[in-house]
């Protein structure tokens, strides 16, 4: 066993107590759920699907047959956090993201945390996500992860675990915003009866965050753009959505070019200077002059201008070294080292197969553990031991033996569940939460809630949309309960 906090094994229901009564603060919502006629709910669920289809939110899924522009299932039952629960969570998230940023700044400069023996040098410097080109470069505001998506699961009333940190280009925030919009259209009465913290200002916050990190060379109001790989990307809808809501241009690599130590976009009025690029393209494809020379998605020379202080990229290049699944184990250490604080959010105990003892334990307990690729994401390539067949486990064990350093394992967490509307009424389904933390040069901004993902299959723990997971609107109930005005 390694760094991490002990985990409970029985699932916690976020809405209903063991004796069947609603959890304190949720009485009004549960009452409404029980009173609402089934036929109406069924109709609203159908309306929701129509709305999403009309808005055009779809999610392209790679490597599968069928409709490539598939709709992500949406559940009409909201997921609720009470204000005090959220306040705690928010403090924990801010603490964690601050530490991650300090860590990135450190490992691209003097590496004090390495010198102090808190994080293995090789895990950092030989990490695939470590970008040598970033070394010794002071990014504006010392911010690397401007937009962080921290995946959190809940196992008890006061127990929140961070499952993973996403410090590269986390997606999903458009679903958070659209879920709220759709819910408000479907159930206006519910929003009258509860004081629900708004989330609509996220695009404003994002724009302010991006403008706060304008490069030193930017004289006036910074010009922000969203850089997308284009319409074949699975998150293209989100790129268009965010650009539209922020009121900035959505560009592709071909729209930008480098000249005079600056980046320009080609417009019908001529070249226009760009100061901050919210890029949704992976590091390797950003600049064929520095990284993969075969990339047609990027902007040749972007890295040169970036390093020369002519443009800011958000998130910074090389942020992936902080969200590697092996690095995850060291985040509590980062919090202690940089902030001198104890971590507020818990870390899941993790075995890293690079260590011989850990590998032996993992191979002996494959039927109890969740095994993940160190550099993987999106729920791809993971083994959920208790759900896998003996053949699947045997095949996975071979992969672990071949490249032990590429795998970590964690106990199967008893994810909390929430009532979810299914064919025959409400049924508990497991959920997680991805809050989005915005880090600017001026301050940290955090919209209450986040994206709740729900495993639509009974008993399933896999909530990733690429694996058939759905989403819910996430409420932070102010003043801890209903407003009987």
């Amino acid at each position, binding site marked *: 066993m390694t760094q991490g906090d002990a985990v409970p094994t029985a699932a916690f229901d976020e809405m209903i107590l063991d004796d069947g009564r609603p959890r304190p603060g949720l009485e009004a919502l549960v009452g409404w759920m029980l009173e609402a006629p089934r036929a109406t709910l069924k109709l609203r669920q159908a309306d929701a699907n129509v709305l999403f289809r009309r808005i055009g939110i779809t999610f392209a899924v790679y490597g599968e047959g069928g409709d490539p522009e598939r709709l992500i299932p949406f559940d009409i039952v909201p997921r609720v956090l009470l204000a005090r629960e959220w306040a705690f969570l928010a403090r924990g998230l801010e603490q964690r993201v601050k530490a991650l940023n300090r860590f990135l700044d450190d490992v691209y400069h003097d590496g004090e945390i390495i010198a102090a023996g808190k994080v293995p040098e090789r895990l950092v410097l030989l990490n695939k996500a470590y970008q040598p080109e970033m070394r010794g470069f002071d990014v504006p505001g010392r911010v690397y992860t401007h937009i962080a998506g921290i995946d959190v699961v809940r196992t008890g009333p006061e127990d929140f675990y961070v499952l993973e940190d996403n410090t590269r280009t986390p997606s999903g925030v458009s679903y958070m915003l659209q879920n709220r919009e759709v819910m408000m259209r479907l159930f206006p009465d519910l929003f009258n009866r509860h004081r629900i913290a708004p989330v609509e200002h996220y695009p404003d916050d994002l724009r302010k965050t991006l403008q706060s990190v304008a490069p030193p060379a930017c004289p006036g109001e910074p010009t922000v753009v969203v850089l997308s790989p284009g319409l074949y990307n699975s998150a293209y809808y989100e790129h268009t959505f965010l650009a539209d809501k922020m009121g900035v*241009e959505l560009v*592709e690599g071909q*729209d930008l070019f480098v000249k005079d130590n600056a980046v320009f976009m*080609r*417009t*019908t009025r*001529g070249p226009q200077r760009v100061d901050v690029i919210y890029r949704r393209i992976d590091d390797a494809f950003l600049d064929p002059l520095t990284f993969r020379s075969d990339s047609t998605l990027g902007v040749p020379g972007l890295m040169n201008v970036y390093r020369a202080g002519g443009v800011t990229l958000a998130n910074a290049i090389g942020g992936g070294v902080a969200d590697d699944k092996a690095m995850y184990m060291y985040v509590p250490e980062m919090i202690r080292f940089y902030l001198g604080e104890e971590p507020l959010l818990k870390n899941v105990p993790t075995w890293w197969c690079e260590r011989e003892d850990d590998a032996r334990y993992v191979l002996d307990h494959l039927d109890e553990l969740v095994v993940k690729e160190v550099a993987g994401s999106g729920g791809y390539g993971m083994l959920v031991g208790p759900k896998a067949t003996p053949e699947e486990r045997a095949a996975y064990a071979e992969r672990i033996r071949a490249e032990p350093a590429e795998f970590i394992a964690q106990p199967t967490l008893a994810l909390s569940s929430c009532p979810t509307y299914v064919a025959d009424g409400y049924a508990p389904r497991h959920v997680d939460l991805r809050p989005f933390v915005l880090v600017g040069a001026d301050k940290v901004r955090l919209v209450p809630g986040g994206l709740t993902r729900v495993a639509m299959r009974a008993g399933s723990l896999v909530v990733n949309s690429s694996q058939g997971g759905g989403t819910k609107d996430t409420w932070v109930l102010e003043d801890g309960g209903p407003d009987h005005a």
Partner: protein
Amino acid sequence: MLSRTAADLYWMGRYMERAESLARILEVGYRMSQTPDSDGTGTSRNEWESTAVAAGCVAGLAEKYGDATLDSVIRHLVLDEDNPSSIQSCLKTARTNGRAVRPALTAESWESLNDSWLDFTANWQRSLGRDNILAFLEWVKARTTLFRGATLGTMVRDEAFSFVELGTFIERADNTARILDVKYHVVLPAGEAVGGPRDYYQWATLLRSVSALGSYHWIYRDSIQPWLVAELLILRPEMPRSLIFALSQVRACLDAITSAHKQNYNCLRLAGRLHAEIGYAKIEDIIRSGLHEYLSEFLARNDALGNEIAADFHFYQ
């Protein structure tokens, strides 16, 4: 506006207009090949060849399929994926361009593009042949008309709209000039007198292909005279497919864009000059100096105008 967005809107407009014109050109060819004299002794082949000329696809067709016949024309001008100007390619490219700029379009405009392509692949792509070609051409005209209607009826009159219109009318000017020029390429069979029944039939078909047969009679109240047909399609400002009409629209779009930009562009100068020259031309002079020569020069200048628009608004890297 991003140059790429402008270019996509412009080409979306051009490709939908081109699909419509191609359908019209093919219809002319089809009707001409059905004229009473057409007995399969070589005259009908001639008409398909001039159809390919009008579509600007004669070299590609000869190279890939040899002789111009109804079948080879369907294959190359309608279904050929490698021919960027085939109706299939036009519908597909217009949809791809539209998808790339989806946020700049209204739902109606986008859906008309998207549904056209989906309908084409589901219902026409595999079954198309000589038996249903006329029905297909009618379908293309209906779909492109729906797109025009959706665009005109729902899009805000902003820069995006101007670029769609610009593409539409640059393309229309090009296509009308080509359709008119087809007549030049239809060499009458030996012994057929100019102004004879076959000649008359061909001019009437040409007018029908631009939906102008009725207008012709309404405006001229005369039997079909070749020089009046030419005047109608070149010089009459009330005729929506005439060169002067198309150029006046191009000019209006450019005026709208440049006044918003507060910049002067070379393309506006070219468009203004071309428009004015057509405005002051007389059909007698055009016929005297040679209709084909006139149209060839127009096509070259219209092309140059298109290139200048692309350059002035930085369409390409």
